[in-house]
């Protein structure tokens, strides 16, 4: 099976946000990056499918030169080679621009299966994978918890809200967006890191016509415009007053 895994580089979870001067994007100085967590699970799933069914795993990533960090990590964990659509402008691009950029590089490869994380921890549009599927002409399914491959087809378990699930059958080639926690991530070993240096990373320029569909007018820290209301009185008085306000003011009950 020829499997593609789309991986995004995002700021780490511990990153303390700082804004750039015109407050339309983050300040990129002193940001630490890591592999988007759902994408790490997608990579692990791809590696397991290759172990089971043979083939190759190709990492695909779009972004500035710094995304080499996550590409190399993916290669160190066992991916075979990589496609890097390198462009500075893609660092802050929305899901559509990124999906178009990836599609331009991936179309010629004729992948059997494409896996992405269900959304990214930075912009969180939850759209890149699905848009990419449309561009590649593949059927898709989202928020996948389990993948079974059989002759030319897939049976996948999709997560619905509220503890509901659903099995779906689809033909290959197809694209799936993977839910976090679907498996246990493996570590990159020393030998894997050394071997990664010899693996091929093909740089692909951004195709013409890749456009953003949205523009960030302003980025800000979420403000709480409310005042804290302190409720006094005896325990039973305060309890009564609190319940009243929760029910009538806050409509939280």
């Amino acid at each position, binding site marked *: 099976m020829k499997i593609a895994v789309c991986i995004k580089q995002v700021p*780490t*979870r*511990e*990153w*303390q946000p*700082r804004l750039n001067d015109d407050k339309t994007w983050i300040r990129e*100085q*002193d*940001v*630490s990056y*890591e592999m988007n967590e759902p994408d790490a699970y997608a990579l692990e799933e791809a590696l397991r499918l290759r172990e089971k069914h043979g083939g190759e795993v190709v990492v695909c990533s779009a972004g500035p030169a710094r995304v080499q*960090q996550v590409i190399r990590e993916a290669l160190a964990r066992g991916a075979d080679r990589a496609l890097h659509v390198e462009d500075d402008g893609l660092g802050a691009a929305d899901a559509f621009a990124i999906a178009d950029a990836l599609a331009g590089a991936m179309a010629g490869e004729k992948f059997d299966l494409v896996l992405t994380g269900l959304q990214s921890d930075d912009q969180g549009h939850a759209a890149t994978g699905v848009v990419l599927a449309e561009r590649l002409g593949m059927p898709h399914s989202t928020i996948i918890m389990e993948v079974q491959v059989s002759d030319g087809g897939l049976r996948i378990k999709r997560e619905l809200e509220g503890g509901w699930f659903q099995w779906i059958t689809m033909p290959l080639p197809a694209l799936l967006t993977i839910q976090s926690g679907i498996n*246990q*991530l*493996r*570590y*990159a*070993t*020393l*030998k894997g*890191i*050394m071997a990664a*240096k010899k693996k091929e990373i093909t740089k692909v320029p951004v195709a013409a016509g890749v456009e953003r569909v949205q523009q960030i007018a302003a980025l800000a820290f979420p403000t709480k415009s409310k005042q804290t209301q302190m409720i006094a009185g005896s325990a039973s008085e305060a309890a009564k007053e609190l319940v009243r306000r929760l029910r009538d003011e806050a409509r939280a009950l």
Partner: protein
Amino acid sequence: MQREQLEVDVLIVGGGPAGLSAALRLAQLQKQQGGEPLAIAVLEKAREAGAHSLSGAVLDPSTLRDLIPDFMAKGAPLAAEVHKDHVYFLTQSSKIPFPIIPPPLQNHGNYIISINRFVQWLASQVEAEGIDFFSGFPGQDILMDGARVLGVRTGDRGIGKHGEQRPNFEPGVDIVAKVTIFCDGVRGNLTKELHRRLQLGAGRQPEQFAVGLKELWELPKDRLAPGTVIHTMGYPLRHEEFGGAFMYAMPEGQLSLGFVVGLDYKDPMFDPHMAFNRFKQHPFVSQLLEGGQMIRYGAKALPEGGWNTIPRVYMDGGLIAGDAGGFMNSMRLKGIHLAMRTGMHAGEAAFEAIRAGDTSAASLKRYQDKIDNGPVKQELYPVRNVHQAFGHGLFPGLMYSGLALVTKGWWIQDPMRAEPGHEEMKTLARYYGSEQAAPAQASNTTLVDRKLTFDKLTNVHFSGTAHDEDQPAHLLVHTEVCHSICGNEYGHPCVRFCPAHVYEMVDDGQGGKRLQINASNCVHCKTCDIMDPYGVITWVPPEGGGGPQYNGM
């Protein structure tokens, strides 16, 4: 258990200034002299280069010029050239400028840097040479055969909280090398083990340490000119406490603010972090910080003891460089250029020894020769007794330091003696006259306003420190003193000297207290390993990749 083995020619443990300089020097020698290419690997416990690097810092660029002559063209991130030095003595409410800037604190020609960014840059130079840089891999154990260092075993990964193997368990790898260069930093866990096994400290003075707490602030851009260097002594430290503060102004309103305290204080109730808060409340400092924002916090120990405390740093198959060997000039408050210099010497010595086919201690002694005959001894020997002089008090220390500038360090008792710092701490009974007379322990959260001053837990949040939760605690406490005698004798000083709120005495549900170790708060400063008066705490590396994220520090 079956462990993989990796064979290299030179293994460098620690990807800080010392280790990276060793790696770079090896690559340079390789290019210059040709021959069979050497396999070189650098191990670094942090997730990425520089993540665990913390320092003031003002860099003496002399070593950088020798190692990378075209450092400017290569984009070395030197934040600002030093323009102005200030040294003050603080009283509770005022500041008294020193009549002259003491020569060791004259920084003309030096650069203010962020060591985190500097190390990232150095690491990129190393990787450009094709050297394997393994981040997220701590050195857990030394592989030895008798007195010969064979290499290092990396830490196991995927061990659960109770010691069980998780499904993704990955055993550590045995890396064997002809020469292992230990650059594992101040109180490095592997160097500490070498000390024990090979008696490296025999015939030397006991090592001495300090702890440095640092914050990175963002101030209004016109507050301090970039390149301004300020050092203070005095308030809030008493004469019996060694230390002082620094403030280094960088571009874009960024300020490195730090507080250093010797880990040889006598008062068991002393809390370095609280002292740091009091320092910030001094009107000189609080006015400087007005309207600013703390964006990062961290702490690290410093090797203060000087020349006479440096252990034997060469052995069969092994060398020690950088802070791990204690190569710091505590009078100038500078160690980065010495870490780089000893790293270079170690790289050269390893290269020469391997080419000569002899990596025994006798052959590797050439490393000590380079130290003795070069700029390292030249700089450190004349100030060899300075820290020990301060052990006698602030004024004796200042007087001796002044004298030492003229006499090149001569003293009646040479080397000047001092006890290991953690043995200086007095019991409550001896310091306060009675176990019960200890002052009511001010809560760590009092006198903080969370704008200028912070409690430890809030501060530690800004260190970016994170560890996988499902792993055993990496602070090993070897005895039951916490629950038996420590409370009465010292009042649980670990709760106070740890700058990261790792140690807590909590209700045990039966009317007493028990020690709780919040290991995931640890910022890897090594203070507890150094300062515990019973000497029963051992810091071991947590699972690779865990620890602080010192961006911009």
